[in-house]
Every structure is written in structure tokens, then in C-alpha cells.
């Protein structure tokens, strides 16, 4: 395993216990940084607006991303389409700290994901279950997040994905050694990764929650379910008081087991983003890229 890949995994370790926020302008990026974001995701439209606008959604304008890189000192992430390695090359060229090969954008390839081992920049990818997570890792992802369902403000899918991953990790950990080969076959992943999960009882990389986090309670829920940090997309800048909500979610991630503090943090946050329930959406982004 290359030292570069190790360093990229380790950057994700440094983000743990933190909140990564979607921002669309340098001003939003500054608000996010001041509120305690451990990184920002630079994109032209947040998922809720992508969902509302419809049409093909692509990598953001590099100029817009550079504006955000100049505005903040924390790591800056940006999204490319699933399988669109040319977009990823462009993001790497502008010195992005983490590339999100994301189902939020329209997939560019309905068969292949990007060969992320060909890049020096780190990648984070979404996953709904252990098989997806390990497939992305074998392709070179150095960080995983649940897919959840972006832009809905509905936490149910993120919960489902995190529980599924936890259950499958427990199954692999409990399996007898000779059963691991069959597990690798079922999960469609390399044996070595299954072996790692068996021995260490965890994914080989950091795992964040994403897709539907809208409140401090949502963030605490995901942390208690085993997330190592949280992405908040539309939840902050689609809400009534972004600064206050952002600060509250950051503190909720640190003190996710302290109900008294969570109660105080949940007070007076103004309007939460308007959510969409699972059965109301026609486009399931989580179904993109398996």
C-alpha cells in the first residue's frame, strides 16, 4: 500500500468527530468555518436545489471552487460525477483536498467507478452497505460515507445504510475464518478487505454519515449509530438560521451522548429545512453507482 494512500486515509482520521458542510459561495464557506466545520464541500448547488432543478448535474466550475479554497483555511472537498475520471483529474489539478465521487451528481458511467488508485488526491465515496463500501475502498477510496438520501432532510436512509453496514461488519467479524472466502464472494469484494473487517471489526477507512442530516439530534443519532463524523449538505444553508444551526450540529457531534446538552443545542434554531419523505421522491440518488 502506497504511503500516499496512507496519508490520504490519515487526513480523514483528522476530520473525525467533525462536521463537513456543503457550501456554494465563499461567504457560506466562511460562515461554515467560523461555525466550526472541519472541512467544506464546495459545490454550485446544494443537493436540495439539484433535486428541485432537475436535469444533469455536473462538477462545479473550478473558478468557483478556487474562490472557496481562498476563503477558508480548512480542507476543501469537491464532487465529481461517478465514473467521470476527467472531472476528478481537474479537481486534483486545482489542489482539492478531497474528491467526493458522488451520487448527488448525475453519474457519468453506469458501469465503472473511477480507478481512484490512479490519483494522488484522496477520494470519499458513498455506500449503502458493506459490499459497496469495500468495493469503493478496493478502487482506492480513502474515506467512506453513508449515501443516505441527499437533499431530502430525511434521515431514514442514512440510518438504514449505517445499520446495514454495522450488521454486516458484525457478521463478518463473527464468521469463522474459512467462511471469509464465501463472504468475499457474496460481498463481491477482495478477500483481503474482508479479512481486515473480520480482524479489526471495522472498515479499513473512516466512515462518516451523510444524506439527510438536518438537526443536532440527527447528527447525534448517526454518531450513536457509529458514524465517525457527519456531512451536512442542504440541512444548514436551507434552514432559517444557518450559523446557529451549524454551530449546534458541530457541538452535537462532539457531545453526541449528552442528552442535556443536546436539548439545549436543539432550542431556538429557527426553521429546519423543509424535508421530503422517502415515498415523495421520484429520484433516489442512493441507487446511483453500486
Amino acid at each position: 500500500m502506497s504511503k500516499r494512500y496512507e496519508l490520504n486515509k490519515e487526513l480523514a482520521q483528522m476530520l473525525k468527530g467533525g462536521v463537513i458542510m456543503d457550501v456554494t459561495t465563499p461567504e457560506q464557506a466562511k460562515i461554515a468555518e467560523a461555525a466550526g466545520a472541519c472541512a467544506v464541500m464546495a459545490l454550485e448547488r446544494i443537493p436540495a436545489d439539484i433535486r428541485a432543478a432537475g436535469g444533469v448535474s455536473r462538477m462545479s466550475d473550478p473558478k468557483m471552487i478556487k474562490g472557496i479554497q481562498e476563503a477558508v483555511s480548512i480542507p476543501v472537498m469537491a464532487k465529481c460525477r461517478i465514473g467521470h475520471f476527467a472531472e476528478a483529474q481537474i479537481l486534483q489539478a486545482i489542489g482539492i483536498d478531497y474528491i467526493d465521487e458522488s451520487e448527488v451528481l448525475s453519474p457519468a458511467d453506469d458501469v465503472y467507478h473511477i480507478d481512484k488508485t490512479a490519483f494522488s488526491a484522496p477520494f470519499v465515496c458513498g455506500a449503502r452497505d458493506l459490499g459497496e463500501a469495500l468495493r469503493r475502498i478496493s478502487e482506492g477510496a480513502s474515506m467512506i460515507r453513508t449515501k443516505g438520501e441527499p437533499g431530502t432532510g430525511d434521515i431514514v436512509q442514512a440510518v438504514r445504510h449505517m445499520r446495514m453496514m454495522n450488521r454486516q461488519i458484525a457478521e463478518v467479524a463473527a464468521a469463522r475464518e474459512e467462511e471469509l472466502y464465501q463472504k468475499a464472494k457474496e460481498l463481491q469484494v477482495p478477500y483481503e478487505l474482508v479479512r481486515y473487517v473480520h480482524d479489526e471489526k471495522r472498515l479499513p477507512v473512516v466512515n462518516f454519515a451523510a444524506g439527510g442530516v438536518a438537526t443536532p439530534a440527527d447528527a447525534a443519532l448517526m454518531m450513536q449509530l457509529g458514524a465517525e463524523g457527519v456531512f451536512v449538505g442542504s440541512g444548514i444553508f436551507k434552514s432559517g438560521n444557518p450559523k446557529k444551526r451549524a454551530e449546534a450540529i458541530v457541538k452535537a457531534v462532539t457531545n453526541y451522548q449528552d442528552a442535556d446538552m443536546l436539548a439545549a443545542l436543539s432550542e431556538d434554531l429557527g426553521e429546519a429545512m423543509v424535508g421530503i419523505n422517502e415515498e415523495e421522491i421520484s429520484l433516489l440518488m442512493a441507487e446511483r453507482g453500486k
Partner: protein
Amino acid sequence: MRIAVSCVQGAFAEHEKMLRNLGAEVVELRKKEDLDQSFDGIILPGGESTVQGKLLQDLKMLEPLKEKIRKGLPVLATCAGLILLAEHISNDDHVYFATLPVTVRRNAYGRQAESFYTEGSFGPYEKIPMEFIRAPYVERVSDDVEVLSVTDGNITGVRYKNQIAVSFHPELCCDTRLHEMFLGLCSS
């Protein structure tokens, strides 16, 4: 021995694992009530210094901890922790504990593309594994600060009285010497 670890954000779990392997007990610091427990030293882990600094302040832990460090509580600070301890940050207006008379530069090497691994000597030790991840380095030290490591001409490890601070991440690998040095400081 009981060692407190700042758990507001970052790679604190890695330090905790290292401490437990060396037989120390861990006290997690997430809110000010946690400071009521007794401990013999404190670790400030890597992560994002802006986040950690803000949370330590907002959660009312910064001042009491600063007082403890001033009074001689041993502290091991790695990466973001070094920034929190520094008296001056050359490319940032913020200061946090400001108990360590050095000037540091944040993200001194640049973005993630510039992160690197090397091995180097640190105080009495040779071949210490050193991961630099969007790391800071020390630009200036006051006369009474002991320089423990220099990497490519830049200061990356210092000791001042009860404070050891490094740019890199001794918690990420398997080399326990730096933590042993720190535990030695805590027990003396």
C-alpha cells in the same frame, strides 16, 4: 496513571489506543464538567485547530485548561494541538492556549497534495516515523525552548518545561517512544 485527551474533534481515538496500550488510563474531555476529574497529563490531538479552538472556547474548557498547563500540567500536543499551544500563529489572528513561546505557521506545507511521510530523529530517538498531514511547523522559538526535531530545515518538534509539541502524528503508527517520553514527563 490517568491522562486526559481533548476529544472535541480530531484523531483522539488513536491517542487513546496508544495510551491504553502503554497501560495508562484515559479521561475524555468533551465538556467542562469532565475537567473535574483528576489527571496527570493532557493530550491535544491532531484535527482542525479552528474547530478544536472554537469548541474548547465555547464549551468553556479553554481557560481552565490553560490555567492547568501554566501551573505545570504535562501536555503532549500533536499537529493541531501545536497550533493551539502556540503563543503566535503567523498566518492566523487567533491564539488559543498561548502557553508555548513559539510562532507556528498553519498549513505550512500547503494542501493535502503536499502532505508527506518521513523518518527523523527526535530528541534522543532515531528514526521516528513522522506523518505530516496539512501540517504546521514552528517558525521561531524563544531561547528557553528546546528544539527536538528539525525536518528539511523547519522545526517540527519542541519542548518547553511541561509542554511537548510536534507537527506530526506519533499516534498514527506503531512507534510508542514519543508517548513513552510524555508518560515519563507525567510521572515525574
